[in-house]
């Protein structure tokens, strides 16, 4: 347990280490590389301290709560399998760090590179040490992200960008499938802890959810490990710098899928589904990858497809579902790592030195770069499975594992295909060797190649040493590791018999191996004609299909998104209306209705007349709405009828408010209509009008039915309290007003703020209009001809001078009586606004504005603040916001009168309303004046008394 506590730190080290290269790039490239190396070395050292325990067969664990609501914990565990992979990740990591230091050119941002590399390393380390499948998912997706950054590292290359995107799309997508699979798995097992899940193999395999989970998990694993048909991304990821290819695409990331198969082997393997899907996929991938590799001229592409092939091999081995297959897989994982990383680095060296990796332009390098040649050839021979090298050993084990395997009762299918795979592997390995390093020295290399500095070849050389060492002394070198890792995979029990010796005697596997080598050599010799045939035969190109598919998907998405969100608010609203009615109906039909409890009120002729007018006006409005001015006149009728209806139905306050609001609204609309087109064109086709009519009627019908239904049913309401307490507790007899300024004064407070904001918004909008494009349009405004020439008619002016103070008086009256009778601050504010509007209409805005002493901004501000402070005043008495107080004053000879804080609050309402309306008006008028309208600055067109005065002067 003690050493287990190191695990979280181990997983964190690379992430913390990643900060250094990013932050200290100014300290120099060596420092960067050094810090990266130190971080990796530190992690490696920590891992090694845990080695003894692991080799003793212990499972190290550590657990930190993270998101218990989800069952996600930062739990880590380390067993043989994890140890094997962690060792590979950190060990190869060290080599890659060294190699990259020399490989990257001075133009490349090295700090970035090492940061990404460490991020990736940490993610990988996390995958292999996670004891919680959700945590594993976290790291899984992190590898996709960090590899995206690494592949796209050379962002100036379009292939880099494309390759990175493709890799992320495929592996990220697989990761999402994996999420689904893991969640199902966790559900079946009742825990997301791997150590728990691994004990529930029987339950999982028996579950009805086994198959979906299997498919989803395999999608994750296969995409990551580039299994057919998801293999295509891997070669394109080769646009990455070679250190990345060597690290991610041979040694570590692509093995994450294989790791997952191995990790979940105890719970998922052993079923026919597993066998047929996994083994078959692996087999196909192995053969297909090898075949393509044979005909690739790009060294890295060749290696990439060979990697695909070997990953297929590993997958197939795990798919067999036998313990022996597991051992072979584990062993081959190690071997593949050693030779393939060495090969990638060698290819990188060739590329680095010769400035090309095209086999067709290479050859004869053995004389120019002997060290590289030795390294590369040994590694390639191992890849080909030539004896004395480690590749041979695991290939033999593979062939032995498959030699007894029946596939759909066919005993030959698997062994034959496996042999073909091995044969192809021999062929491309030899091609790699001979076409690159052997043959005559050429004089047309893009750059004269020679062996690189030690720093660059040290890492591959070290790996090749391992290749030989394992090949010769497998048991001594990796025997315990294979044992402990394989044991971790199949979860204990009796180990199968296996031997890591070079000579097993004459077995079927040996024969298969011999056939492979001979056949491979033959193929290599025949490469030229075969390549001609290969290139002549058309075949689907995975990348093109992928790009095409993605392009189609993007286009489809674009088509859907743009067709649905096309900016037609008309359609949005139609959908809204239909949807609302439909959902409302569904809701209604889900419940019952008891019979009506109220008798309907009698319909008086008076009401019927009002109804007739309302209906007639509405219908008329809809028919003639194209004539905008006339539509406004008709709207007036509707407003008038609604107000009259409120009078009739005992709502005098509503009537007052409705009629005054309606008037102000119409004035605003008239002001706006001055600049707007006077006609609405008929642009909807008949069917659309019909459709809209249908929607309208359905909506109207629904609303009417709803209102009718509830009006005939009684319910007990809270407002009985308001009626009972209005006078007692609120000091007013107009209950509606007391509700507004007291019971629900907070609503009113919000309401005046709405008005205030409206004023500010309108003002701000006007200001921005006068500075924008509209400004130019306004300046070029042509005013309609044939307008009347009297702007401020004498009669209107005189009448207004008389009516204005009276209207203000009425406003004061309505304000003061609001608490006890219909009225109040809001209506009063509107009345005074209307009075001012009347004044403005009479003498013009310019003149009236000059006489204006109070500023409208201030009025709004003052109103809102007065209302707010009145409400807050209650705090002084320790009462909540808006608690009202009132009292009666008796000062003879004046009759007793009431003073209420509610009145002060109402004053705030009054001011805010007045300010907002007038600010709006002011804004609209400024637009008109900006348009260059000629203004008569005098209050009346012509004051006849002037005539007398001037006449007198004349005399």
């Amino acid at each position: 347990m003690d050493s287990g506590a190191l695990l979280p730190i181990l997983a964190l080290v690379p992430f913390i280490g990643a900060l250094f290269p990013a932050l200290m790039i100014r300290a120099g490239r060596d420092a960067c590389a050094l810090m990266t190396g130190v971080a990796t070395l530190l992690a490696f050292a920590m891992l090694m301290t845990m080695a003894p325990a692991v080799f003793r067969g212990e499972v190290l664990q550590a657990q930190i709560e993270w998101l218990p609501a989800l069952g996600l914990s930062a739990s880590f565990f380390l067993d043989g399998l994890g140890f094997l992979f962690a060792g590979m990740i950190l060990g190869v990591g060290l080599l890659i760090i060294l190699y990259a230091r020399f490989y990257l050119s001075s133009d490349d941002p090295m700090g970035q590179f090492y940061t990404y590399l460490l991020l990736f390393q940490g993610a990988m380390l996390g995958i292999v040490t996670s004891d919680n499948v959700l945590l594993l998912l976290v790291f899984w997706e992190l590898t996709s992200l960090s590899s995206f950054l690494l592949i796209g590292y050379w962002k100036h290359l379009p292939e880099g960008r494309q390759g990175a995107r493709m890799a992320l799309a495929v592996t990220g997508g697989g990761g999402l499938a994996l999420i689904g699979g893991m969640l199902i798995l966790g559900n079946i097992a009742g825990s997301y802890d791997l150590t728990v899940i691994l004990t529930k193999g029987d339950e999982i395999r028996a579950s009805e959810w086994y198959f979906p989970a299997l498919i989803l998990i395999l999608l994750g694993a296969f995409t990551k490990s580039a299994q057919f048909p998801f293999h295509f991304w891997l070669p394109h990821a080769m646009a990455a710098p070679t250190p990345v290819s060597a690290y991610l695409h041979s040694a570590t990331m692509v093995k994450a899928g294989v790791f997952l198969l191995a990790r979940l082997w105890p719970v998922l393997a052993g079923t026919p589904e597993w066998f047929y899907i996994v083994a078959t996929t692996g087999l196909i991938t192995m053969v297909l990858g090898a075949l393509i590799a044979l005909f690739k001229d790009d060294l890295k592409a060749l290696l990439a497809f060979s990697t695909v092939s070997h990953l297929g091999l590993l997958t197939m081995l795990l798919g067999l579902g036998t313990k022996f297959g597991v051992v072979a897989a584990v062993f081959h994982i190690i071997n593949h790592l050693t030779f393939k990383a060495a090969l990638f680095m060698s290819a990188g060296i060739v590329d680095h030195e010769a400035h090309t990796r095209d086999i067709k332009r290479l050859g004869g390098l053995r004389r120019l770069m002997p060290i590289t040649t030795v390294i590369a050839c040994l590694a390639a021979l191992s890849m080909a499975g030539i004896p004395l090298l480690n590749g041979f050993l695991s290939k033999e084990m593979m062939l032995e594992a498959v030699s007894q395997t029946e596939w759909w009762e066919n005993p030959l299918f698997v062994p034959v295909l496996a042999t073909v795979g091995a044969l192809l592997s021999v062929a491309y390995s030899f091609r790699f060797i001979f076409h690159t390093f052997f043959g005559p020295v050429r004089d047309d290399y893009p750059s004269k190649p020679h062996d690189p500095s030690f720093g660059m070849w040290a890492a591959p050389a070290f790996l090749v040493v391992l290749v030989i060492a394992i090949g010769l002394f497998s048991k001594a070198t990796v025997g315990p590791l294979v044992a402990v890792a394989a044991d971790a995979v199949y979860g204990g029990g009796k180990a199968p018999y296996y031997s890591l010796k070079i000579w097993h005697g004459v077995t079927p596997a040996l024969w298969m191996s011999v056939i492979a080598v001979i056949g491979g050599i033959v193929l290599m010799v025949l490469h030229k004609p075969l390549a001609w045939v290969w290139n002549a035969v058309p075949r689907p190109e995975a990348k093109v299909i992928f790009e095409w598919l993605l392009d189609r998907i993007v286009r489809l998405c674009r088509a859907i998104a743009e067709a649905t969100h096309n900016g037609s608010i008309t359609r949005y609203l139609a959908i809204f209306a239909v949807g609302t009615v439909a959902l409302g109906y569904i809701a209604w039909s889900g419940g019952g209705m008891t019979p009506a409890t109220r008798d309907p009120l009698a319909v008086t002729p008076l009401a019927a007349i009002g109804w007739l007018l309302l209906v007639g006006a509405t219908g008329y409005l809809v028919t003639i709405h194209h004539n905008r001015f006339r539509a406004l006149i008709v709207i007036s009728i509707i407003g008038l009828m609604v107000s009259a209806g409120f009078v009739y139905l005992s709502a005098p306050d509503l009537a007052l408010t409705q009629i005054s609001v309606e008037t102000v609204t119409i004035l605003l609309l008239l002001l706006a209509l001055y600049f707007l087109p006077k006609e609405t064109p008929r642009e909807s086709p008949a069917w659309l009008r019909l459709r809209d009519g249908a929607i309208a009627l359905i909506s109207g019908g629904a609303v009417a039915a709803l209102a009718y239904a509830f009006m005939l049913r009684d319910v007990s309401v809270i407002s009985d309290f308001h009626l009972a307490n209005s006078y007692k507790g609120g000091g007013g007899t107009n209950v509606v007003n007391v509700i507004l300024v007291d019971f629900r004064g907070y609503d009113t407070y919000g309401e005046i703020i709405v008005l205030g904001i409206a004023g500010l918004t309108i003002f701000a909008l006007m200001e921005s209009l006068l500075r924008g494009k509209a400004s130019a349009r306004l300046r070029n405004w042509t005013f309609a001809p044939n307008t009347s020439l009297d702007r401020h008619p004498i009669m209107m002016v005189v009448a207004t001078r008389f009516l204005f103070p009276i209207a203000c008086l009425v406003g004061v009256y309505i304000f003061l009586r609001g608490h006890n009778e219909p009225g109040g601050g809001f209506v009063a504010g509107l009345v005074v606004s209307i009075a001012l509007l009347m004044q403005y209409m009479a003498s013009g805005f310019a003149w009236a504005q000059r006489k204006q002493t109070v500023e409208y901004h201030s009025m709004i501000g003052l109103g809102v603040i007065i209302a707010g402070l009145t409400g807050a005043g209650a705090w002084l008495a320790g009462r909540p916001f808006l608690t009202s107080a009132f009292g009666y004053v008796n000062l003879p000879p004046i009759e007793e009168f009431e003073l209420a804080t509610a009145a002060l609050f109402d004053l705030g309402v009054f001011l805010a309303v007045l300010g907002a309306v007038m600010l709006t008006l002011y804004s609209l008028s400024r637009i008109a004046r900006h348009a260059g309208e000629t203004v008569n600055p005098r209050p009346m067109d012509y004051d006849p008394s002037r005539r007398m005065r001037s006449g007198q002067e004349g005399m």
Partner: protein
Amino acid sequence: MTLITEFVISLFLIIGGIFALIGSLGMVRLRDTMQRMHAPTKATTLGVGGVLIASMLYFLLIEGVFSYREILIVLMLLVTAPITANFIAKVYIQGNVGNDDLPGTDAERGWAVYDEPPMG
């Protein structure tokens, strides 16, 4: 409530109603807009006047409350009716009657709709 009271109130109500009807009839019967304007500006206003007097009498004689507040409405209508009539007439003239179809002003300036006011 005495018969006389009721009779007086009813009388004013009926007078109001009759003038309202006449106003409506005028709006229907008369041929052109200017002619039609005569009906509501006078008849309907007087009709409302009748109702107002009835209302005042009603509250005075039956509810026992003297109020002359209804007069405010009459005042309002009396003050505003000429103005609105004036405006509506101008709307009609501007749209339908040319300057030449009107009698001359016998003054320096033409009719207000068609001529600018004197400066100064």
